[in-house]
């Protein structure tokens, strides 16, 4: 009967004993570390991690486009049982049980097995992808934890170090390990750049690729293999929980900046490399900053900035575009109102009434007036009235005419009852192009339908 003593996990015990403070390193130290001169080992670690970030950023693009982001999460969690099994059984094959290549081979085997399990569950049951990924992730990781606790309790010799694969420990990597990590990353980068055309076609239109005779399954498999390589390479430096975010965050952040694949790959790679470089640097300078967390937070900051500030797809740009369209539409309505009331000025009372009817807030009214003034549609404002310029009146006439044209079109061509057309006309009158207007005129004229005369008459 073996002993049944509870196993206590207190990896933090040594922390509690010694007093650790967050002290800033000296300036010279910082500069040395940043410029790769703080010793051979530190420099290697920083360079290797940056290379890893580059590789993860590049291959992550294809994982994102293939909608496999969370699949990589399952993959990275599934590496843990492989690491423990490799540790336990390396001895029986006469291998050094703590040698990194052996552990990484074990990690890749169970990682791939995890991905296969997700596919099997998807194929053979009615469970959805999210459930399948969650199942594989938790069960495999649970198996890894069982393995770890078994090793801690039963395996002879020192088994520390294995824990580092969970949270990563870039600072304590040996040069050999860094070289291994760097070369795996390099291979992944070369392979991705070499097969970019194949990856692109499979990501964007796999049905077309299949019809066109590409070996889609094979390409897919190869892509997944590269993801496995990068994940496994990053285990020791970043840890298996966070290595997946090196694959997810850079491409998502880069996606805000561009619509072109080649640019996307470039930006994503740069973001990955930057966060890898910064993460390793910070964790080399501060003893208690784990590299993985710093890398992810750096990438996270870039993501947040990209999401808000990107010029076309960013949240702010988007909001500005939406508001400006609303302002333009509202301004058109105002000018249309002025034109239709057959005046050349707008009294303040009239404006207030119209604004109330349209439900414009005071701020919105200001915005409209500002926008119209800038376009020279509105003139100077006195206490009583706002002058409408020639251009403003013309714009109002045009909008009014578009309104009437479209209304006629809906009634005579789209079979919509006259009492129902106004609402949709209000939305569309602002966006009619010149060609479309010309077409409408021709069509209505051929039909013998009355419509307002052309603007030359309004002048």
């Amino acid at each position, binding site marked *: 009967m073996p002993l049944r003593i509870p196993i206590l*996990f207190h990896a*933090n015990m040594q922390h509690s004993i010694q007093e650790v403070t967050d002290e800033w390193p000296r300036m010279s130290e910082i500069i040395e570390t940043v410029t790769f001169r703080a010793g051979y080992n530190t420099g290697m670690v920083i360079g290797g991690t940056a290379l890893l970030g580059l590789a993860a950023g590049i291959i992550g693009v294809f994982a994102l486009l293939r909608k496999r982001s969370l699949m990589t999460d399952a993959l990275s969690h599934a590496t843990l049982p492989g690491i423990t099994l490799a540790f336990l059984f390396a001895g029986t094959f006469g291998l050094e049980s703590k040698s990194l290549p052996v552990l990484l081979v074990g990690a890749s085997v169970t990682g791939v097995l995890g991905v296969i399990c997700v596919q099997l569950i998807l194929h053979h049951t009615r469970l959805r992808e999210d459930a399948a990924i969650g199942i594989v992730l938790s*069960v495999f990781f649970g198996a890894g934890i069982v393995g770890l606790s*078994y090793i801690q309790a039963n395996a002879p010799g020192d088994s520390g170090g294995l824990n580092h694969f969970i949270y990563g420990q870039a600072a304590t990597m040996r040069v050999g390990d860094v070289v291994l990590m760097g070369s795996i990353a390099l291979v992944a980068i070369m392979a991705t750049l070499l097969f970019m055309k194949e990856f692109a076609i499979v990501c964007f239109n796999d049905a077309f690729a299949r019809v066109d005779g590409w070996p889609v399954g094979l390409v897919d498999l190869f892509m997944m293999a590269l993801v496995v390589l990068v994940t496994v390479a990053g285990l020791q430096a970043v840890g298996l929980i966070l290595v997946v975010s090196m694959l997810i965050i850079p491409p*998502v952040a880069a*996606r805000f900046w561009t619509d072109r694949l080649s640019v996307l790959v470039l930006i994503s790679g740069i973001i990955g490399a930057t966060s890898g470089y910064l993460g390793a640097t910070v964790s080399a300078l501060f003893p*208690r900053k784990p590299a993985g967390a710093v890398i*992810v937070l750096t990438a996270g900051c870039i993501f947040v900035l990209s999401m808000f500030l990107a010029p076309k797809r960013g949240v702010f740009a988007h909001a500005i575009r939406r508001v400006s369209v609303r302002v333009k539409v509202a301004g058109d309505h105002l000018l249309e109102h002025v034109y239709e009331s057959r005046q050349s000025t707008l009294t303040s009372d009239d404006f207030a009434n119209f604004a109330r009817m349209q439900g414009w807030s005071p701020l919105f009214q200001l915005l409209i007036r500002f926008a119209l003034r800038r376009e020279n549609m509105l003139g100077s404002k006195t206490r009583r009235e706002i002058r409408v310029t020639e251009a403003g009146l013309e714009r109002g006439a045009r909008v009014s005419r578009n309104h009437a044209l479209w209304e006629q079109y809906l009634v005579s061509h789209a079979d919509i009852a006259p009492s129902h057309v106004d609402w949709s006309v209000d939305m569309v009158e602002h966006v009619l192009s010149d060609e479309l207007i010309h077409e409408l005129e021709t069509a209505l004229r051929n039909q013998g339908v009355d419509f307002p005369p052309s603007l030359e008459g309004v002048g």
Partner: protein
Amino acid sequence: MYFDLALDLFPLLAAALAAVCCGLLGNFLLLRKQSMMGDAISHSVLPGLVIAFLIASTRSPLVMLVGATIAGVVTVVLVEFVKRFGKVEPGAAMGVVFSILFALGVLLIEKAAVRHVDLDAECVLHGQLETLVWYSAPATISGLWSVETLDAIPRQIITLTIILILAIGFVSLLFKELRLASFDPALATTLGFNSTLLHYLLMIFVAAATVASFEAVGSILVIAMLICPGATARLLTDRLRTQIVLSVLIALFTAVGGYFSATIIPGWFGRDTVNAAGSITVFSGLVLSLTIIISPSHGILSRMIRRIRLSSRVALDDLLATMYRAQEQAQAEMSASDISDAILRSKPQPLLNRAVKRALIQRHRGMYSLTEKGQCAARSIVRRHRLWEHYLVDQAGLAPDHVHETAERLEHLPPVPPAGPQTDPQGKVIPDDPQVP
């Protein structure tokens, strides 16, 4: 002695409570395709816990619970925000949010550790089931009935019990609404139940359950229990009520089974016990795999059996119909090779033997012919085939030379074709129904 009150009672209780609590709530995540939200929340409660600790400087369960619950809701909101305003694919949005939050938590935990605290990223993952030891446990089970027992109950178990009761109350009170919102959120909203609010309520409960389970069993077991029992039950039934009850039972079973596998199985090989939370997770995976294979309604095995049965019935039907048609061409007997050519099977012997065994056909000097019983069955099949052909031409407006393939499939299915004339579109006689002489 496999069960030791001092060592096993409280850990087992904590594991069972956590499993049931998560298993119950996981059903609704599963239905809303939000299973990974459990994963995301259990990662991102980490910064919530640490921030709550850094602010309040205490590890009282209430503070931790509030911090983690806020973090859980923040996660849900952020994921939604990134998805909607960043136009990011849902999986990637979730991945981005929870990994950033988790990284934040890892950094903060290092900061907290500076202040001499036993907040530890490791035990967040594995849990500390094994530390719930009851040193002054009574020697026998009957000794449990005393006031000291109440005093000895660890607070993790008390927290878990409260959360479990609340969760049961939540699910049973709002069952109707939850069901509606899980299957059709849009309909729920138009009917006047705010499905978004309900969703957030559910997420609050998931976050609370996560953090209550956390300290005792670790986040990995929480994720497993949020998904596996529900998924297992989903493969066994199509009714939500049954699924929920089943999932709770399965969660209980895996907790107990997994716990004892951790304490007992290593002993058989003369080894020390392994981590119980991990072992329960693996056990739930095993139960799920087994269900995937042998579930009576949705299992791989039963579907395979159904498929084999169907294809063998179709093969038999085709054999009889072929022989009947040959008979119509005045060929009452067929050799095995004739049959093989006609039904496009290279090895017809097993099929022929089966038909002979069922007395549908008979063998005479190497030639096969239909028996009385076989005649009946064949007539019925050919009748259905030709009636369907007639129906397809007459009612569905298909061209007469296009209906054969469709009728070939329909003839094997249960619905009886509507009665028709004496001949089919090709002018062949439709046989009489053998059941109605």
